[in-house]
């Protein structure tokens, strides 16, 4: 297919809704997913659909499998049973297909995972140049556009180690956006940040949400969740306990486990 379609005239407008005119209304479809780490059953019968343009926030106690579930969506983790279909493509052992999906799915990690030997700009242009095969100048143009969007255009030529945690995470978001993904995955993006820097990252994510990006976010930032989520998912012990609209989820949780979790996290 035409991965090279993303020209500069589109990039200057950012990932606008107009770009996403593919026929798949379901961005991510997870059917009967089961995964074991050795004999430990981390994911049990997970069924979850993410609609195009939808924003889902997954929360739950640590070890509940929420990060693992997220990492199955771009197959950074494999699984033993079940199916994951992303943007109409089913993820199998086929490496080509996996890379095809990963190109369309951006991911932001708890530990940023920026490449320390490259500057912020080079971090952002690496994949567009080598995967999308864009000319260097065009890739840099796109990178500067997204670095400006996460409000750190002036840090483009710095190395990750010269940036604060919040700035690094924003570079990481820009790096993912430079591939102009259809879906963004966030794996506890603010958990490793100093409290003073959480807001700048969350603001960036709210901005993305307002632009209509399809997002799956693992996070404990309940304020953020209430603000942007279309649906909340609570996981515990490898299972989905409750899926609900944020209003209902926070104000009238149906499951006892949800009530307990919320009471602990909101104090």
């Amino acid at each position, binding site marked *: 297919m035409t991965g090279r379609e993303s020209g500069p005239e589109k990039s200057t407008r950012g990932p606008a809704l107009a770009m996403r005119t593919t026929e798949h209304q379901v961005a991510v479809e997870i059917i009967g997913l089961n995964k074991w780490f050795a004999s430990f059953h981390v994911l049990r019968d997970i069924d979850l659909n993410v609609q195009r343009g939808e924003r889902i926030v997954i929360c739950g106690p640590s070890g509940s499998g929420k990060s693992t579930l997220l990492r199955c969506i771009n197959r*950074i983790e494999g699984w033993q049973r079940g199916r994951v279909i992303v943007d109409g493509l089913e993820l199998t052992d086929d490496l080509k297909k996996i*890379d095809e999906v990963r190109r369309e*799915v951006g991911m932001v*990690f708890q530990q940023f*995972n920026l490449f320390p*030997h490259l500057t912020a700009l080079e971090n952002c242009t690496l994949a567009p140049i*080598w*995967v999308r095969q864009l000319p260097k100048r065009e890739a840099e143009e796109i990178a500067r556009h997204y670095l400006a969007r996460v409000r750190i255009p002036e840090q483009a030529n710095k190395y990750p180690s010269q940036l604060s945690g919040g700035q690094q995470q924003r570079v990481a978001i820009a790096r993912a956006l430079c591939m102009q993904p259809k879906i963004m995955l966030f794996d506890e993006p603010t958990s490793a940040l100093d409290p003073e820097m959480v807001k700048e990252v969350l603001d960036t994510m709210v901005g993305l949400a307002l632009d209509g990006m399809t997002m799956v976010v693992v996070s404990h930032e309940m304020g953020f969740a209430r603000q942007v989520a279309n649906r909340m998912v609570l996981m515990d012990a490898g299972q989905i306990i409750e899926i609900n609209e944020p209003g209902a989820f926070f104000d009238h949780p149906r499951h006892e486990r949800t009530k307990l979790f919320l009471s602990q996290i909101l104090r």
Partner: protein
Amino acid sequence: MAEQSSYVRRALAEPQPPPVGEGVLARMRARLFDGVFNTVLTIISAAIIIALVWPTFKFLILDAVWKGSSRVDCLPETVGRQVGACWPFIQAKFIQFMYGFYPDSEQWRVNLTYVLGLILLVPLLIPRVPGKRLNAILFFGVFPVVGFFLLVGGVLGLPHVETGLWGGLLITLVISFTGIMFSLPLGALLALGRRSELPIIRTLSIIFIEFWRGVPLITVLFFATYMLPFFLPASWEIDALARVLIGVVLFSAAYMAEVVRGGLQAIPRGQFEGAMALGLGYWRMMGLVVLPQALRLVIPGIVNSFISLFKDTTLVLIVAIFDLLGQLRAAFSDPNWATPVTLFTGFAFAGIIYFLVSFGMSRYALFVERRLNTEQAR
């Protein structure tokens, strides 16, 4: 001080310069002569250094004979004093030490190869010089080919020079350069192979690495030179030097593989995941993200291997290839230059050359390391 249950700073403290460094004398006192024990240590060390440096200086420079045409000029009876290094010996044999028996009329080809190599290498080593990509292509891609045809000849009207005639520093440099050029990429591939998730590739890599690490280089050279011809069809005549080169490359690649693997293991999982999530395939992930970081981490180990490879080239002596040291030893048997100091002079000369090259590599590596460290401020 009064009790402080609450405190509000009224003015911010101005930053101040650190306490000034004292003069040379004060620094020496602080570092070399603080206390009886350290003073004694300093004096003993100074005595040892003087005891080593002075005789060396005396032998190499003060007592040395600088002009002469035969052994007689270097004998104490002729000179009338104690005799140090006999430098005329080196002068007389210099051509051999440099080129072996490479024909006199063709030696310009060797020099040209050196000059080409230096012209391409020096700007590659200086970070400020632009055009690194083209430079690297020329040095690693074009230069070896050009150098090969220049040295071997047989094309463009250049007479063919058999490798059997090559010798001296030329052999030393050819073997080291080839070894260094090929062992690093091959070693990196083997290191990746050893960490591969594909069982066949992993097993083959392990077998290869462990085999070559398990046999001594001398055995490899012997095998390549004397036994390999028995295993190959008679029509397959591989040049003796080429066989040795292949042996050296495979041998050092195995060591390099383990050095690189050490670097690979130090790269956090997150780097792999970050690269995978962007859709970089295996080779791009390794080539653009993982290896650049891994190789930087193991620069000391890589240079260590390079230096030991450079010095191990002397072992080719046992398969009748005369590198610098080989030519030197051959020259010792020349009765024209049989003096009590010939041996020491020759080894001093070789020692200086080996030291300069090895020390140069080591210092340059240190420079690269420091530069990368400040650049990325790790």
